[in-house]
């Protein structure tokens, strides 16, 4: 039928052809299954999306957990190495001090190398003034063989409470 049209003068324009095409658009209204299919697919996609999301977190957690294990062992080995070095350092320092004490006659009289032990103080010095106040020595009096000193200590709960003096004798 179109072959006859080739020689005909009565041809449609391209715009008219588009218009006729627009009028004969295919429709999904006849397909009642469409809506149900969309619902099923939407629910399925949500289910797979959620399970994928859960699996993603599980995988991430597992990877993080296993990657932490070597790091933990690395830290442990580092601590043991540093402890060893402190012990070695302390032993060296002790022997040096014992040597020095042997050169000092007074010290050598009082101490023997077996009684002497050098201890490395690793505590941090506190910059808190409250802490310093609470342990400050006010006076220290030395009398012959007896050492007597008076200290002031502040009550922690009531900061401005009365000062308490203690006499220690030894």
């Amino acid at each position: 039928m179109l072959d006859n049209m080739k020689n005909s003068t009565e041809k449609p324009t391209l715009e008219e052809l588009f218009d006729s095409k627009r009028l004969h658009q295919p429709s999904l209204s006849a397909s009642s299954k469409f809506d149900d299919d969309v619902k099923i697919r939407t629910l399925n996609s949500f289910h797979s999306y959620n399970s994928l999301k859960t699996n993603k977190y599980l995988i991430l957690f597992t990877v993080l957990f296993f990657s932490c294990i070597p790091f933990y062992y690395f830290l442990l080995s580092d601590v043991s190495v540093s402890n060893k070095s402190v012990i070695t350092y302390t032993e060296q320092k002790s022997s040096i001090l014992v040597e020095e004490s042997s050169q000092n006659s007074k010290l050598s009289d009082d101490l023997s190398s077996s009684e002497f032990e050098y201890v490395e103080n690793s505590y941090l010095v506190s910059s808190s003034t409250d802490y310093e106040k609470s342990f400050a020595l006010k006076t220290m009096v030395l009398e012959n063989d007896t050492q007597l000193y008076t200290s002031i200590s502040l009550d922690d709960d009531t900061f401005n409470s009365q000062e308490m003096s203690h006499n220690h004798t030894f």
Partner: protein
Amino acid sequence: MDASIDKRKLVTNCDIDDLVESAISGNFEAFDSIMVHYRDRLFGVIYNMTLNHSDAADLTQETFVKAFRSISKFKRKSSFFTWIYRIGVNLTLTFLKKKRSKYFFSFDQFFGNTSNSDSQLFLSKENSSVKNTLLNELHEKLNEALSKLSDKHRTIVVLYEIDGISHKEIAEIMNCTEGTVRSRLHYAKLQLQSLLSDYVR
């Protein structure tokens, strides 16, 4: 059938934005109404892009599934219609890229009701059955010519000439400038004119 008619009435009477708001808050019924409102038009566009009924139905379903899943990301910078069309067009272009054109040149199986405006058609003197046969053959030729265009050119022709979307909206859907849309449309129509020179003026 009655239910779908009711849903259509609901969409026509209510503001589509309210339905979108409701769908964003997770109301599937609202989304269902939106779907009924847009599905035929979207299916028509996708069908003219793929020229295959089952592929078009599948892609239309996929468009709505994707739209419902990501409706919370809809920022209202464009209209909902543009947004859902963009999803559909992008999905179809990706599909066509993968498939690389094994088109059916089948007759349209789902003719809608023809309106009185048919009288403006060029074949007014012909009787109905002859007219339909000739129309079908012409549509087949048009599909054949459309399939020879690139995916992007065909999409623009379908959106502008068949679906009646403006240049500006096509530019938003296809993420390009209006100038690009006009240029592609002009080039595509020249190509179609040349391909259909035996059948159109």
